[in-house]
């Protein structure tokens, strides 16, 4: 079976709650809409679609598309081609930044720190499941200007690392719109905010610019550099709509992974109802960096991620991993489960078969937060 099948899962039909707003190019805070409690915040239709070639190669220059009025042509190009293109990006990012910063919050739950983004007038805040931890916990939110308000954690999709929280203190917030998964294209420019290293007194949420590197049903990758403390913070498109929530990182600076916005859209009702769903990995932040298939003796390596620990330890495509820390396991899922039970930085003994020979190597696991 092709290993990619493991990542595929059937999308449920999208709940058709979508309220189509007038297309506004610049991000405007929500606020004009009437919303019932618990209703998913409305999303707007995009005013421009970045039409990348329907990807056999994302590098092929996109076909020329007439950008709607107001949309800078640079956002339909494979790369900026001139000083004017760079200025157009700068105009857009600087125009958006203030509202994006205002919608971003620091989050303290017990001893854990993370980030989040306010998406509705009634104080719903998107975050990562590993920041929220579990439903019903007390949360201290730190607004962009240092003000502190209270709230609680709601439901979680543990598998996708999506979590929801709500501010319970009365108040008015700058809110960000939720974007549309279907409009996100590889190569789209994007902005990340959040609190790297946790909230620092006197430091506003930190702005980073990058591009969408990869898009899957279960994850978005960007080159907006993230670090611990950013978890739960938002990734925005060039209209200031949330397209992802920071979840984890890899050893390369361009390996920054975000929960796709569709996870919140599809799981909204269950998260509002404080449900925990989507499976629960036991510890879940260690990563070895292999792709694999089931094998009678364990799991066969079908891909080794460049720069990840498995590669550094010398594992190769075709190796059959048979034991982790002396424990045998069933299939690739069994291997994944054993890895997830470790902590980043742990050194694990990996036994594998190559050309019929049994060998053991030590692999130092990396973090994927």
């Amino acid at each position: 079976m092709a290993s990619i099948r493991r990542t595929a899962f059937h999308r449920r039909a999208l709940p058709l709650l979508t309220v189509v707003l007038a297309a506004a190019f610049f991000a405007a805070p929500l606020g004009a809409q009437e919303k019932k409690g618990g209703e998913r915040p409305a999303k707007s239709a995009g005013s421009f679609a970045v039409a990348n070639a329907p990807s056999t190669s994302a590098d092929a220059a996109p076909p020329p598309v007439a950008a709607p009025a107001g949309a800078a042509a640079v956002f339909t190009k494979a790369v900026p081609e001139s000083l004017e293109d760079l200025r157009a990006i700068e105009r857009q990012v600087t125009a958006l930044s203030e509202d994006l910063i205002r919608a971003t919050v620091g989050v303290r739950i017990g001893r854990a720190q993370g980030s989040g983004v306010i998406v509705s007038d009634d104080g719903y805040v998107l975050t990562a499941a590993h920041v929220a931890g579990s439903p019903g916990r007390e949360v201290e939110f730190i607004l962009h200007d240092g003000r502190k308000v209270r709230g609680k954690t709601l439901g979680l999709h543990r598998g996708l690392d999506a979590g929801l929280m709500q501010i319970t203190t009365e108040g008015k917030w700058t809110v960000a719109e939720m974007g549309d998964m279907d409009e996100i294209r590889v190569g789209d420019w994007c902005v990340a905010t959040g609190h790297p290293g946790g909230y620092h007194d006197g430091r506003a949420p930190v702005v980073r610019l990058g591009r969408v590197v990869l898009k899957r049903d279960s994850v978005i990758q960007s080159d907006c550099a993230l670090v611990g403390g950013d978890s739960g913070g938002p990734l925005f498109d060039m209209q200031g709509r949330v397209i992802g929530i920071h979840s984890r990182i890899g050893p390369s600076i361009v390996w920054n992974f975000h929960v796709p916005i569709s996870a919140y859209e599809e799981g909204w009702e269950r998260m509002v109802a404080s449900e925990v769903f989507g499976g629960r990995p036991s510890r879940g932040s260690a990563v070895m960096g292999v792709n694999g298939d089931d094998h009678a003796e364990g799991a066969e390596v079908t891909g080794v991620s460049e720069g990840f620990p498995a590669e550094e330890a010398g594992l190769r495509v075709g190796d059959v991993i048979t034991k982790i820390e002396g424990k045998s396991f069933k299939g690739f899922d069994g291997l994944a489960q054993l890895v997830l039970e470790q902590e980043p930085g742990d050194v694990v003994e990996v036994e594998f078969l190559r050309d019929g020979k049994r060998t053991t190597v030590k692999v130092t696991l990396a973090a994927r937060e």
Partner: protein
Amino acid sequence: MQHDSPTRGTARRDILRGLAAWTAAALLFGAAGAAANAQSLSERRLRNGASVREAFRSVVAEPSRWTVRVLADKKPIAFGLIVDKEGYVLTKASELNGGLACELKGGKTAAAEIVGIHPETDLALLKIAAKAIEDLPAAAWRQAGDPPVGGWVVTPGLDELPVSVGVVSVARREIKRQSGVLGVTIADEEDGAKITRIFSNSGAERAGLKVGDIVTAIDGTAVKSSEALTGLVRTQLPGQTLRVTVRRGEKAEQFRVTLGDAMDAFFERGSLQNRMGGDLSTRRYGFPVALQHDTYLKPTECGGPVVDLEGRVVGLNIARAGRTESYAIPASEILPLLADLKAGKYAPKDLEPPPTAVIGPPAPEPGNK
């Protein structure tokens, strides 16, 4: 695969779906991002990719002529900025050691001497033998104040394209000083401080200190209690090297310990994450005012100018401080200092070793590659 079977119950499928997603996130996507996957953005189209930096060619045409590569004993240690035709060059002070020279665009190299060092900002003024080089160009400074959050900042090197590009992440602020730590816990002992624990990867461990050693002096100053030791170390910055005298059994021994920072000693995971994506500057804390930007820089790429889209100097890159952050001393802080630096107000004193002598290069950290 069994778990793809449509006959399975919904709940089970949810769990498996979650697991599949975790597996995907943890183990597959790194590979997908790096491998020849038609749907991932190619390296050259990333924010800092060559094709994107190509658009900045005209931006750095002039600035690359004011930029120098500072060499110590012929090895590149930093960039620098030519401030006028007399051959004065600004750079990062704490990287300087050994015989200094500056390499200009086009390959010419001239010997350089330290004229002044401003410890608070970590700026150094060098003078190169201007006669050796005709027609020295001089920097043009941005007059309009700091660029806004989200505005492009461009780091020129000596080549046609910038070394790296990014955006302003946080408006100017003070970067708080962090005190250095030996990486030990201590207890009072008669006429000294007894080491009761040594943290792994700490300066104390690397220098060869042992549990049970009794610290009796720091840089020749007697230590009579654990409180006295803490007081002496707290005034020092991470990266500084102290001469530590200990009593081990009957013998007195001396060690040279390079101080770490508390993050390294106590929050190993946070520190590990910050180093994922590249090395950091040793002196990266304690600046009276700095702009934070998201440009990826190596420590040896600090010390030179960072410019706006008009090619005007916004500031001097002073530190690579973490996976998400680089710092620049803003132009408006540098310009008032220049006259004093040139006038010799901050000249290194002959009788004492220059401040650079006690700030060594970062100690090699085995296993942290």
